[in-house]
């Protein structure tokens, strides 16, 4: 065990760090899309975008470990990068895996340089956890497809240029077999984007309505009817992204408990508060160390497994419980609480749902890690329209 970089890693870190020190401060704290695009362009120019991507697409052709090192260094700055996470993390890798060279040529470079933004159009009102139950119809018309239906929970659709779209091309076969993957230009006639307002009042998601949208067959990714397999590629990339959920942590609660009094003494002296702090420390720090284990596996060329599902399962619930407990500590004053804990408490129910519900994540762990059977499926072999 050691936590030192290898000489190669250290060299890369130094290079990344020097670049960031020079360029990142100019983008610090900015959250707008224009700033994000500019930052992405700056990174791309310097060879720090698409670190593991092939050089022929403008990537660096580097190692997963270099990507981790880059992330560690970039995280030290408040640079705007969230708007690219889905596109560069999930959508464009799928394009690279399935599109012809010419298409890649045309799409990947601009995405990498931050000139275009991608969103993912999978979920539908009637197909959330059960994505394969989606209904959006794509019907052959000439040398393309006519698409009708509705998507939902699409992050960033309102500022995206392209979308990765999963649609049903054959409703007469079982649900997983009648799907096909496309990419679409979000500016196409017939696409309407509506913001969704969440509990917290923010709007991070959209509904996207398709009315007779025409998509040429050249925008198909993979074979007709093979969309589910293509989607699994996308979703695998989602799981690889061991992100962190925003929200207060035990450190914030520790601070609060040192400030607030219970019976005239700081709340930190209260054993019930201490127990919770200990429990949440164990969760948070345990997730952090688990990430280190995954990085170690990555650095040895192993793929992190579905163990990554642990991360969101534990931290989403923790944020809800911790922020709720902080409000409880505030007592009546919590009624008028703005700030970190109140915001987190309002956002936290979404954390337990978006990107895989608690229940789906437990299923993934039980099935893919422990090898327990899948839930009984009555619909697996039935024609979708039966």
């Amino acid at each position: 065990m050691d936590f030192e970089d290898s000489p190669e890693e250290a060299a890369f870190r130094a290079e990344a760090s020097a670049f960031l020190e020079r360029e990142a401060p100019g983008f610090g704290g900015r959250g707008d899309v224009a700033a994000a695009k500019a930052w992405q362009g700056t990174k791309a120019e310097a060879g720090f975008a698409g670190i593991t991507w092939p050089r022929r697409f403008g990537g660096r052709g580097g190692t997963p470990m270099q990507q981790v090192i880059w992330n560690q260094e970039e995280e030290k700055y408040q640079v705007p990068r969230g708007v690219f996470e889905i596109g560069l993390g999930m959508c464009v890798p799928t394009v690279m895996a399935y599109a012809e060279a010419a298409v890649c040529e045309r799409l990947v470079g601009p995405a990498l340089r931050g000139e275009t933004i991608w969103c993912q159009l999978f979920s539908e009102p009637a197909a959330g956890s059960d994505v394969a139950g989606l209904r959006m119809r794509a019907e052959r018309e000439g040398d393309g497809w006519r698409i009708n239906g509705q998507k939902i929970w699409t992050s960033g659709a309102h500022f995206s240029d392209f979308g990765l779209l999963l649609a049903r091309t054959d409703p007469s076969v079982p649900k997983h077999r009648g799907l096909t993957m496309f990419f679409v230009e979000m500016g196409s006639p017939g696409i309407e984007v509506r913001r969704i307002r969440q509990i917290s009042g923010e709007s991070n998601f959209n509904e996207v309505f398709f009315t007779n949208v025409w998509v040429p067959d050249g925008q198909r990714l993979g074979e007709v009817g093979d969309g589910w397999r293509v989607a699994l590629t996308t979703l695998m990339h989602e799981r690889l992204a061991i992100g962190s959920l925003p929200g207060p942590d035990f450190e914030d609660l520790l601070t609060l408990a040192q400030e607030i009094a219970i019976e005239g003494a700081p709340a930190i002296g209260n054993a019930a508060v201490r127990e919770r702090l200990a429990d949440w420390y164990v969760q948070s720090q345990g997730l952090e160390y688990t990430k280190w284990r995954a990085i170690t596996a990555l650095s040895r060329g192993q793929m992190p497994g579905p163990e990554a599902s642990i991360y969101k399962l534990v931290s989403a619930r923790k944020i809800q419980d911790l922020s709720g407990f902080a409000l409880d500590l505030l007592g009546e004053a919590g009624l008028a609480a703005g700030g970190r804990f109140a915001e987190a408490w309002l956002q936290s129910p979404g954390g337990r749902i978006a990107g895989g519900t608690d229940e789906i994540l437990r299923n993934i762990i039980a099935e893919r890690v422990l090898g327990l059977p899948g839930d009984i499926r009555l619909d697996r072999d039935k024609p979708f329209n039966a």
Partner: protein
Amino acid sequence: MNFAFSEVAVQAGEAAREVLREAASGAARRAFGAGVDAALWARVRGLGWLGAAIPEAFGGSSLGEEGLCLIAEALGESLAPVPFAGGAYVAAPALLRFGSAAQQARWLPGIADGSVAAAWALSEGPGAPEARAVGTVFRDGALTGVKWPVVDGTLAQLALVVARDGAGEVGVYLAPLEGVSREALAGLDPSRGVARLAFERAPAELLASGWSAVEAVLARAAVFVAFEQLGGAHRALMMARDYALERQAFGRKIGSFQAVKHKLADVYVAIELARSHAFYAVWAMMAEAPDFLRAAAAARVAATRAFEMAAAETIQVHGGMGFTWDSDCHLFYRRSKHLALCLGGIGYWKDILVRTLEQRNAA
């Protein structure tokens, strides 16, 4: 043995539920920002519910505490955004328990007909209710100090203010709110209003002296609030149940998945335990049982937990739809926290519960 509500109380509760089904529909959402739905409040005032536990001599209906509890349950179920609690749960029981004949005659009729909305003003910032945190002072017949947050503080005519007299003794004071400076605060539950009240030599008079009186007022209010919480919890559970019976995933109703079934079974259990405690607490209040404070604390702890759990898990069962602004789920979620905090957080009440057990053992 008869551990059930009187027929007349049950009827009052059902009538309230019936009225609110329409009258309160959508009201919580309409009240966002305002903290009250004026039309609903007018309706509620007219129905005499505020006086349910106030004697007829003071303009009440003498329905009794049992009836008021079941009305509270109906209000909780419908998320009614009205300034009901300060008068009906806090001020009226406090006046009936501690008030002089003159004080009762002055304030109870207005509370009963809703012309006097009342507010509970204890908190002076973060922390649990405790005597040493009271900085507001009463001197020469007037109060000086800042109270926040005060639920319904912007619109109330009367506040029950916890303050300290010249000798340092804490007590509950009756303070008319004309001339008191008020500032509306943004609340976690925007369908209920909270405010900061700045008393500057504001005229007031003593209602009851001693921290034990403060606790007694809180305990009575906690019982009625527990019924509001039960109502909210039950409704949140039913919303989840209904959605689980309707929503399909993986070719079946999501209510057929054990993850959903067992979650809702646990919520049901929490609600039923809370309901039993609330039943006992209202009996103990009416019977002036020696273990009333413990009973109230237990009801408060159980009901708080049940509503918070029901509201959070209802969102979870609703999935993506559950965390949208347009779903009613978050109205319950917000209200569950509002009610959890409005009389002091759950830790405070757990501590009271154990303290009363210790005192019983020491006796």
